């Protein structure tokens, strides 16, 4: 600081008036959009953990048969309502590797219940990469290899067995194949319809916009559950489980699109006012090009976030339908179908483990919500 005779202070540091033009002002933002989004998303721990969990869950789906020790509909008549067995490592202070105590079933003739007692004297070690029931890897390759199975002559029910003596753990894994994909198929249907109608309404406006908006309002005013019930009751009962599954997910998608279409339309209306869209229009770009090149890339990320947030609704929808016996039907396995068994309060009271399929539902729905939340927060990475 120098002081001038008239009392002014002037900074002494050298100053270059021409410096700025070629410099990047925001070096931290000098990256493509996805990288900026990723950098911001990384800071969101809960969302990151949820994302990894969901990724692993989906990657697991083709290998469900390998991980599960039993087939989905494999029955153990001797072990109805067997309680969960704990995998242990130390037997009387000695390391044995993963082992279980064998269960012995005894009929209690006073209560007419099976009573299961672990035999603490006879630890038997689990077998790994062993032969078991046949399954198809990713639905294609036939295999009998399982990650682990029970020791000879024993059972391993990590989460207990159900009314028919089927392993709940294995069934949850198999059920994930349907329950997790129903959301994806549903959201695809809803995405296509939502983006289609939403963008048409938002871009062209006028009468089309009016008609689409009224249709959305009518669809949204219909009570959801009865409509689901009606639609799924219309599915012929002699169809194969796979066909029923597709129909159910499409029904869920058809009923979900109005919400998505609305947010697409709102985003479109906002983006249309952006000057880069005006600029493209004034350069002579056709509406198709403007939608494809400018509008969709700019709101795709928002759509992915809102889709992530609406997958849980689909999963819950499937669960609710199947729980009521109107969605997927046995022999198909889904979490909702499994919970169907838990409808009987008396049996939940005596065999609480048959309600375990609620856990994956809660966890997956939460994970999707956390992930969607994190995505939504990181989608606008341009502010510091």
């Amino acid at each position, binding site marked *: 600081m120098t002081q001038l005779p*008239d009392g002014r202070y002037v900074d002494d540091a050298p100053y270059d008036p021409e410096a700025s033009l070629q410099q990047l002002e*925001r070096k931290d933002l000098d990256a493509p959009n996805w990288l900026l989004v990723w950098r911001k998303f990384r800071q969101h721990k809960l969302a990151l953990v949820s994302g990894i969990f969901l990724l692993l869950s989906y990657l697991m789906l083709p290998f469900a048969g390998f991980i599960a020790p039993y087939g989905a509909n494999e029955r153990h008549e001797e072990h109805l309502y067997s309680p969960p067995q704990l995998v242990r490592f130390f037997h009387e202070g000695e390391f044995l590797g993963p082992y279980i105590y064998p269960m012995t079933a005894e009929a209690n003739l006073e209560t007419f219940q099976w009573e299961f007692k672990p035999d603490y004297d006879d630890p038997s070690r689990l077998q790994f990469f062993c032969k078991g029931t046949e399954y198809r890897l990713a639905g294609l390759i036939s295999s009998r290899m399982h990650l682990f199975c029970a020791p000879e002559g024993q059972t391993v029910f990590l989460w207990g067995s159900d009314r028919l003596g089927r392993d709940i753990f294995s069934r949850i894994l198999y059920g994930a194949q349907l329950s997790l994909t129903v959301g994806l198929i549903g959201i695809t249907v809803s995405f296509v319809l939502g983006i289609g109608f939403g963008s048409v309404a938002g871009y062209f406006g006028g009468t089309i916009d009016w008609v689409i908006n009224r249709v959305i309002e009518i669809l949204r005013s219909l009570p959801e559950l009865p409509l689901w019930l009606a639609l799924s009751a219309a599915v012929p009962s002699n169809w194969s489980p796979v066909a029923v599954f597709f129909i159910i997910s499409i029904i869920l998608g058809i009923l979900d699109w109005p919400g998505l279409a609305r947010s697409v339309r709102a985003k479109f209306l906002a983006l249309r006012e952006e000057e880069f869209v005006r*600029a493209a229009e*004034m350069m002579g770009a056709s509406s198709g090009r403007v939608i494809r090149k400018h509008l969709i890339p700019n709101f795709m990320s928002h759509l992915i976030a809102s889709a992530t947030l609406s997958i849980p609704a689909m999963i819950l929808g499937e669960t609710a339908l199947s729980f009521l016996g109107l969605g997927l039907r046995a022999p198909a396995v889904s979490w909702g179908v499994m919970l169907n068994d838990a409808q009987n309060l008396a049996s939940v009271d005596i065999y609480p483990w048959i309600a375990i399929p609620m856990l994956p539902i809660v966890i997956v729905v939460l994970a999707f919500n956390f992930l969607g939340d994190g995505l939504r927060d990181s989608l606008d990475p341009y502010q510091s």
Partner: protein
Amino acid sequence: MSPLLTVEDLSIGFGRGDAVVSGVGFEVNEGQTLALVGESGSGKTVTCRAILRILPRTAQIRSGKVMLHGRSGGLSLTDLGERKMRAVRGDAVSMIFQEPMRSLSPLHRIGNQVSEVLWLHKRMSESAAKKIVLENFERVGFPDPERAYKSYPFELSGGMRQRAMIAMAMVSRPDLLIADEPTTALDVTTQAQVLGLINELKQETGMAVILVTHDLGVVANMAEQVVVMHKGRIMESGAAAPMLQAPAHPYTQQLFDAAPSIPANPEPAAPPGEDDLILQMKGVSKTYTMRAQSAWKPEVLIHACRGVDFSLPRGKTLAIVGESGSGKTTAARIALGAELPDRGGEVLFRANPQGAPIAVHSMNRAARTAFQKQAQMVFQDPYSSLSPRMRILDALTEPLEIHGIGSKSEQRDRAAAKLRQVGLNDDMLMRFPHAFSGGQRQRLSIARALMLEPSLLVCDEPTSALDVSVQEQILTLLEDIRDRLGLSYLFISHDLAVVARIADEVAVMRQGLVVEQAPPDTLFYDPVHPYTKALIAAQPTPDVDRPINLKLVAQGAGSADTWPDQFRFTDDEAPSLTQVQPGHKVRCHV
């Protein structure tokens, strides 16, 4: 006597990053105005907020001291407890923010928001507070204080909202008023009135003012002391008058040179020749229909443009000047064919001097494509005019792709060439727009407009979102390109001083009507219309000897019914645009 506010060696940083303000110190004496001058990112707002400790959560004061010697004795604001700090805010020190719309709660009546200060600090009853608030409303110039007390912020215009903010800041008779760019979002005439009001209130109450601004013209009109900041450091500080006469620091000099001003001694100019017109608008009007307040009443008609006649000679610049809502942007959009004028209006475009003029709004597909190549637009907001998902290269080559010009490598070469033409390096082609500053983005946007080698460029307030020094560079660039490539500009602006240097002819618009039209020098030499006079008088110039003439501003800036009889117009009727001299047209009854 100790100064009212002392800031010593203040340093502020965000998170773990470098300090955004470092070693800033200044003093404010009672009854004085200190101007904090700097461009966006210079740290002036952060400094002000640090005084009241209302910084964003990630920012922390790293060193320094802020001392206030006000009504309650000496206080060290940096060490005060949060509870005592609350008692200072809005009472001894109050603040006015830049955006009057966002600083008032839209759900509360103005009167309640202003009274809140009194309820909180003075524990006044509602009726006692109301009395004082009404007095204040009258003082800040609300024509009907009772009505203002009951209205919601969205019912008021920007200038009125800023007056309400001032009333809110003044109601507790503060020792120090911090005004953070209080007039940046306002029109020139409103700015002049708001500045005048702050000055009057300062004289009346003897409070001190810290005025944050980027405009040296405002400084010349308001401040006794000036602190010039750049990148968080003080470049120069001291008394205003000597600094404006002879800036000592090169940065101050640069700001001073960049400040747009209306020439002090204008000479009337010769009217431009009108032989080779590239664009001609004849009797263009545009009426929008808006839904009425009640669902069963007929729709309301809004006249955005009324009977606009322009002719733009080839290679020249026609500027349209007016406040927001004057119809200038609508006129430009019609000129580009983006909007259809009402029946009877016609826009003619002549691509080359020999060719026959074509009507912009009745073209077939091929002619429209040809026209789009010839006429391009530069937009106002550099932050929204480039798609954040496209690399610079893609954004620049898009117009070529649309019109199917050249191969990929030719397109790329042309993009690089245009980038150099606007003064940027061609290694920027693969980057994304968000890494660039506003000025750089505006250059990119100009480069994109030049890609098709147009002959007409419509510039819609291309500099109003930029800092003064950047504005100067962009104007120089635009002038340079125009002369080198022989372009014609239709230049939209709200700032007469910006237009003064670039335009060959200026049309002043108000409420959809052109009120005066002449070459800029003629306009400054002999303004006839009261509104033009007001615009010229309201323009702050960085010269202490040319203060804003508030009387002239007040005469012209009001609504059209307050003008002298011969200029008056209503929604349905208006005097015609009369030629008072060759090349000088005024809307008046002769």
